[in-house]
């Protein structure tokens, strides 16, 4: 009796110690994994802040001669990345317009007909799609749109490639969200004589809207920084381009161009900083929406 209590006492102390070590271990690893983000931000701000001013947002990228002169005079490089900002907005916007309805409908189908053979196939394909390298989607955009449709590089081709890329996250988040919604809600609406399509559009999807939008925002932030597929589709443009059948610039494309031009290298940091801020904002927005629009049932 006595011995056993002594042992269990010692045991308890040991266990508590283990618990403590484990907890502090977790905290320090969590800290470690968040360091890279802060290092990146630190680096970008340090090197990029000089270039960021009003012109940076409203003027197009400078040509290499102007930049060379400015650099040799120790001035900041004139111009900005307005062509990239507008291009990114158009390409990402168009990709969203294509992918959001498609993804939500597809996800709704998957959650409503979870057991169907066809749903199983679709789910498998969507999962595979998630793993397709983005450069391959660029090739697809090139083959499908650039050559046969727009007869040259275009924002449309870029949007199609990116919309395929954001589809899986919308489909899966819609499916997962709608699956969690209790069937009693659907029954309530059906018992009022509401036709099935209205039940889905007016009751079920609005109830899951926060989860669906979170997926949408994460999808957008995933494609906003994509470069490889755009190189094969949108290509880039030195002017602001609003015609979607024409070559168009985008912020990540500009970063790549700056990298390749020794005179413009110092623009990399500020363009990257802006892109990173944009994506961080999208992520924060996703969090805020998830919290604010959360429906309790």
């Amino acid at each position, binding site marked *: 009796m006595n011995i056993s209590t002594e042992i269990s006492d010692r045991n308890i102390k040991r266990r508590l110690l283990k618990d403590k070590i484990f907890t502090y271990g977790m905290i320090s690893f969590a800290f470690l994994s968040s360091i890279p983000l802060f290092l990146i931000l630190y680096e970008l701000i340090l090197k990029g802040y000089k270039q960021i001013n009003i012109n940076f947002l409203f003027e197009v990228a400078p040509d290499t001669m102007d930049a060379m002169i400015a650099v040799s005079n120790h001035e900041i490089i004139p111009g900005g990345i307005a062509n990239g900002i507008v291009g990114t907005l158009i390409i990402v916007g168009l990709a969203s317009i294509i992918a959001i309805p498609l993804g939500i409908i597809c996800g709704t189908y998957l959650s409503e007909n979870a057991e169907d053979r066809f749903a199983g196939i679709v789910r498998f394909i969507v999962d595979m799609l998630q793993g397709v390298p983005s450069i391959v989607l660029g090739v697809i955009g090139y083959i499908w749109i650039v050559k046969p449709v727009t007869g040259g590089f275009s924002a449309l081709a870029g949007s199609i490639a990116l919309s395929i890329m954001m589809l899986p996250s919308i489909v899966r988040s819609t499916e997962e969200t709608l699956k969690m919604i*209790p069937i*009693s*809600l*659907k*029954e*309530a*609406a*059906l*018992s*009022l*004589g*509401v*036709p099935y399509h*209205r*039940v889905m559009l*007016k*009751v079920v999807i*609005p*109830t899951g*809207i926060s989860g669906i939008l979170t997926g949408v925002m994460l999808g957008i932030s995933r494609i906003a920084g994509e470069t490889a597929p755009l190189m094969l589709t949108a290509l880039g443009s030195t002017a602001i381009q609003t015609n979607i059948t024409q070559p168009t610039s985008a912020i990540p494309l500009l970063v790549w161009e700056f990298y390749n031009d020794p005179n413009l290298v110092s623009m990399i940091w500020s363009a990257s900083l802006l892109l990173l801020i944009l994506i961080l904002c999208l992520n924060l927005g996703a969090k805020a929406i998830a919290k604010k629009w959360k*429906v*309790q*049932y």
Partner: protein
Amino acid sequence: MESTILAEMPITKTNKKLNVIQNSIEHIDSPVLKIDDLSVSYGGDKYSIRNVSAGIARNKITAIMGPSGCGKSTLLRAVNRMHELYPNTHNKGAVYLGDENIYKLNPIQLRRKIGMVFQRPNPFPTMSIYDNVIAGFNLNGIKLKRPEKDEIVERSLREVGLWDEVKDALHNRGTFLSGGQQQRLCIARALAYTPEIILLDEPTSALDPIATAKIEDLLVKLKKDFTIVLVTHNMSQAARISDYSMFMYLGELVEYGKTKQMFTMPKDNRTEEYLTGKIG
């Protein structure tokens, strides 16, 4: 215990079929709803309810009792065709609302005439109390003028005794109410359409005794304007508020009659065994 009863079942069943079944089902004069030899299957040739025939009395409360799995919910849902939610259902027989076979009606029209309240309160979480009450109109795209809406909301909420409790919070979400209030809101939502019949599937089983008592009082009050059919697991609830009772067992309607009569002098052995707690 249960297995011995099941083993004895066939013998009792055939006995009853031969002699007693006819008079253990009460005939109702000019019923509002007439269930005629109804059998319902969720797929295949296994029928979850078999050959049920009964008339439902107008402006009365009819309780459906029976052990778990005997087909109470199936019968109730077959009456407003909610069982069709499951893809492979099929049925034999008919249910008449007035002169019309409900299986020939459009389910949307049918459900406007036969409202339903469920076991767990299920107000629409995205909607305010106000919008929940008129959800039947809004969701069906029926446009009403503001004063009409106000009128319907107030009338329905008064009918369920919720008006005084929520009249200052009509535009808050319905899900912030207590369980009992939510259930009364769901009843108000079903009443807003002024259906002829209200079906309730164990509407109080998720509620505490006080909320339950309120709902029971409410149902007794509502039978003045509506016909009520109620599934309940709770025998004393059936005894307290129902005028007629059905006892179902293994998919059959074993006995149907005036509640008082059934509780004091059941005609079928199985009813008696259920009421005395021997089966179920």
